[in-house]
């Protein structure tokens, strides 16, 4: 007999006191006096757990319904729709505004230097691989804080039965966790001009698709989710078929293709960036000027490189952005980029590693 059995046996043997001898008399007296009791009382317990669960589900459903109703009304109300547009325009950098950008029919501003021709590019210098950069922001020239990592991948692929270069970009808060490449551009293998580009933002809720022919460009911007918005523009390219250009965010794409550029001391060149609806201030075609200002040895996490120092000016509507780019002389890789965002904030990107393509 184990301990539990002994305990059970002891429980069954617990003594019970004697019943009062007059209990039956009290029972009979109560009966005679008309006292009655109900022995069928069923226990009604309040199922608090089920009530709480039901209340939670009800609250959740009501909240979801109210929220969807709110979004629906936001979309239906003319006033609110304008507010939504204004919100998107002011807070999401790729939501364009017709007021700020140049009209599509406008003649693009003149580039500062001769346009880079596709014939001048040395395609043999392009190599497959993955370049990883780390970014930082320096405030007041003192406080430096990390600002994530970015990765650029360049490879030869076959797209729609055509041999092409594919240029992909991804970003990460820390180098440990990389999401999928959300920015993909297919490049013509002979001219390096973009053919098609797809990039996702805002947790894939925003999609920008660009398609290019020899003479035209089409771009669509779609916001999914409760506030659906779509924009679409097409233009005829205002430059010749022999002119090199880039799409969307220019410097990243130019940087990946810089090995093909004929850089040398005193070199100067300009190109066009095309963004129809997805960039503030770049509505249509805007120039980008590059020129070599000197040679420097630069040390970054990936090593020390003998570099060309380039000055790059990108025009955004009425403003321009100035950046200094160090490009390795032998390989043409972008080693370091320093952008002067404002008088107080300096953002820097440095090459952290390179992995050759397979």
């Amino acid at each position: 007999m184990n301990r539990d059995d002994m305990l059970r046996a002891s429980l069954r043997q617990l003594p019970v006191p004697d019943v009062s001898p007059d209990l039956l008399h009290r029972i009979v007296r109560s009966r005679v006096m008309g006292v009655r009791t109900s022995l069928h009382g069923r226990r009604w317990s309040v199922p608090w757990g089920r009530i709480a669960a039901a209340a939670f589900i009800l609250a959740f459903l009501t909240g979801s319904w109210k929220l969807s109703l709110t979004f629906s009304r936001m979309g239906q109300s003319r006033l609110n729709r304008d507010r939504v547009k204004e919100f998107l325009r002011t807070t999401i950098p790729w939501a364009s505004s017709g007021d700020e950008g140049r009209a599509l029919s406008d003649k693009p501003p003149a580039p500062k230097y001769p346009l880079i021709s596709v014939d001048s590019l040395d395609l043999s210098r392009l190599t497959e691989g993955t370049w990883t950069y780390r970014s930082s922001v320096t405030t007041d020239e003192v406080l430096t804080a990390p600002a994530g990592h970015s990765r650029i991948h360049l490879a030869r692929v076959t797209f729609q039965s055509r041999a092409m270069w594919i240029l992909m970009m991804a970003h990460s808060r820390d180098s440990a966790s990389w999401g999928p490449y959300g920015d993909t551009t297919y490049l013509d293998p002979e001219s390096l001009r973009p053919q098609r580009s797809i990039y996702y933002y805002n947790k894939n809720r925003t999609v920008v698709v660009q398609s290019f022919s020899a003479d035209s460009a089409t771009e669509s911007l779609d916001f999914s989710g409760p506030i659906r918005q779509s924009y679409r523009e097409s233009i005829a390219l205002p430059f010749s078929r022999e002119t090199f250009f880039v799409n969307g965010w220019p410097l990243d794409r130019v940087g990946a293709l810089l090995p093909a550029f004929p850089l040398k001391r005193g070199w100067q060149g300009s190109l066009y960036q095309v963004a129809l609806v997805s960039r503030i201030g770049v509505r249509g075609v805007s120039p980008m000027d590059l020129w070599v200002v000197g040679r420097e040895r630069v040390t970054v996490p990936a090593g020390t490189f003998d570099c060309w120092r380039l000055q790059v000016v990108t025009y955004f509507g009425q403003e321009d952005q100035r950046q200094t780019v160090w490009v390795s002389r032998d390989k043409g890789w972008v080693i370091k980029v320093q952008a002067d965002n404002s008088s107080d904030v300096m953002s820097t990107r440095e090459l952290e590693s390179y992995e050759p393509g397979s």
Partner: protein
Amino acid sequence: MATRVVPSAVDPATLAAPAALAQQARAGSTGALGDLYRLYGLALFRVAYRLTGSREDAEDVLHDVFVGLPEALQGYKEQGRLDAWLRRVTARVALMKLRKGRRQAALQLEPEAEPAPERDVEELQAAVNALPVSLRSVVVLKEIEGYSHAETAEMLGITVVTSRVRLMRAMSRLRRTLQRPGP
């Protein structure tokens, strides 16, 4: 002068068959009610006492059971044993009494429970009385009264799983309490 009757102090053989007594009690026979009391009163008192932990409450329960018994027998279908049915009814009334919260905070070993209990028995009784009502009910019904978990669960309005869990917790508590060295 009131007649003093102690349950089970009579020879059951001298009484009519339980079914006949139930039929007569249902018809309002006080004599039959008294015979049923003599036949089953002590067993029912034990159930009530172990559940309530108090002689006074147990007697109240027994009083209520027998006062309401003639009417309750109207719903008795005579499909099972009468004593088993009465025990279930008594347990239900005792649990209802417990749930009403009367005397719950004062469940102490009453001095008249046993004239001179052995120390082990006294400690065990104190440990049982110290259990929360939810656990003590399961211990009494399952381990002492011998009901199955399904019957215990039905009487307490809980699930069979809950009954098993409560019994396990109750036994664990009892073991811990009894292993603890005394003052």
